[in-house]
């Protein structure tokens, strides 16, 4: 068989797989199957302690596998087909475009932490400076394609959209404020590359491989992400299972509602290190146990200032900048939590 025919067949099979995944997800939506786990906190009382992880994981993956498969496939495809060179070219070009791209586009291809820190440094060193870099950094955990899909499916699309909007405001605000501080400016000056060494157009010449290879590489990347994230995710889910089973609803209702609830959620949501995506499932459990929606939003917004993230960034920009953005993010988390609670009447 000629190489061309082999490529055509491979492209066809890969497309078939992608359409099958998307098609099945749409089918489950039309039939209104539940994609989220169906166990309620009260169901857990019938299990003994060693049964809880198995029951919860089974319940979870039985319902959610298609959603996870779709999320990882979509993340791989977006990452592969987004025109990276166009995005990165504009990212370093100036303040306003820098903010727009840092907040709007860059998060889409940063599903993995190994691209996040280099991109952050890249934005900082090139023309755009520290403001857009911080904006990108705070936006990435809230607005990457995996988080959006999982939040939307397992919590609600309302909270997913609200999370994006408030994260955007927070990220831009923190970026602008830090770029005005003296210590922010100092870092920027230290890293700025002098203007006369403009990147020449000839130095980048991305080759485009044939479609079948791109599809394959997209799916491989999705698989790679799954391999990176899922082990932590499973451990996280086991913890969530126990938390759901043993935390008395009275405590959650007592502490994680009202104004105190928002404060507490914003504090434990941050430093407490939750691996990617687990914060969504833990948030879901707490919501079922009686946490208010306002506190849930503050909880989800805690993600950018968790400790591992801050440590990685502090190597580039020093602790003063890190603490400043963590503080701004925390203030925003509390204020938006309270505001959201007032608007929807669930404080």
């Amino acid at each position, binding site marked *: 068989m000629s190489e061309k025919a082999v490529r055509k067949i491979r492209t066809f099979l890969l497309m078939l797989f992608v359409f099958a995944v998307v098609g099945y997800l749409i089918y489950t939506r039309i039939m209104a199957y539940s994609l989220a786990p169906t166990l309620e906190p009260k169901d857990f009382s019938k299990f003994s302690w060693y049964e809880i992880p198995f029951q919860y994981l089974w319940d979870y993956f039985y319902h959610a596998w298609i959603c996870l498969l779709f999320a990882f496939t979509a993340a791989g495809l977006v*990452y*592969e087909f987004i025109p*990276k*060179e166009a995005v*990165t*070219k504009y*990212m*370093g070009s100036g303040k306003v475009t820098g903010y727009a791209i840092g907040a709007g586009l860059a998060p889409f*291809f940063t599903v*993995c932490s*190994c*691209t996040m*820190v*280099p*991109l952050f*440094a*890249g*934005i900082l*060193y*090139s023309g755009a400076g520290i403001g857009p870099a911080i904006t990108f950094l705070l936006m990435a955990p809230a607005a990457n394609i995996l988080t959006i899909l999982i939040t939307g499916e397992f919590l609600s699309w309302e909270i997913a959209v609200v999370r994006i909007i408030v994260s955007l405001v927070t990220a831009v605000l923190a970026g602008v404020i830090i770029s005005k501080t003296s210590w922010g400016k100092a870092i920027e000056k230290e*890293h700025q*590359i002098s203007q006369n*060494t403009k*990147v020449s157009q*000839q*130095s*980048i*010449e*991305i*080759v485009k*491989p044939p479609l079948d*290879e791109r599809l394959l*590489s997209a799916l*491989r*990347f999705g698989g*790679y992400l799954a391999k*990176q994230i899922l082990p932590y995710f499973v451990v996280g889910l086991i913890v969530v299972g126990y938390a759901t089973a043993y935390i008395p609803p009275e405590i959650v209702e007592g502490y994680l509602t009202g104004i105190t609830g928002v404060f507490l959620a914003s504090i434990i949501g941050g430093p407490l290190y939750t691996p990617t995506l687990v914060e969504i499932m833990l948030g879901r459990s707490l919501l079922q146990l009686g946490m208010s929606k306002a506190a849930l939003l503050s909880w989800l917004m805690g993600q950018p200032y968790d400790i591992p993230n801050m440590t990685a960034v502090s190597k*580039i920009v020093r602790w003063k900048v890190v603490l400043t953005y963590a503080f701004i993010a925390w203030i925003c988390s509390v204020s938006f939590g309270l505001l959201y609670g007032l608007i929807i009447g669930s404080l």
Partner: protein
Amino acid sequence: MKEVKVEVIGPEPACVRCQTAKKVVETAAEKLKQTGLTIKIEKVNIISKDIVSRYGVLVSPAIAINGVVKVMGRVPSEDEIVRLMKEAVK
């Protein structure tokens, strides 16, 4: 003798995908050595000032051949690298 300089660009410490990219480049280079090409492989830090000033913002892993970024944000196949290196000396 013709020389090809390949830079594998990624963060320090190298992420998993950058390590894979480097391995692919090394095996491809091994293959091409028999044809009489001299291939220099270098692992460079994506967040060094030198790289940013020469190439701008990049997505890791990236591969530059003779000072031109050819691959960005993905792990290429061995055949593709062989092809790119051959093109570079043409």
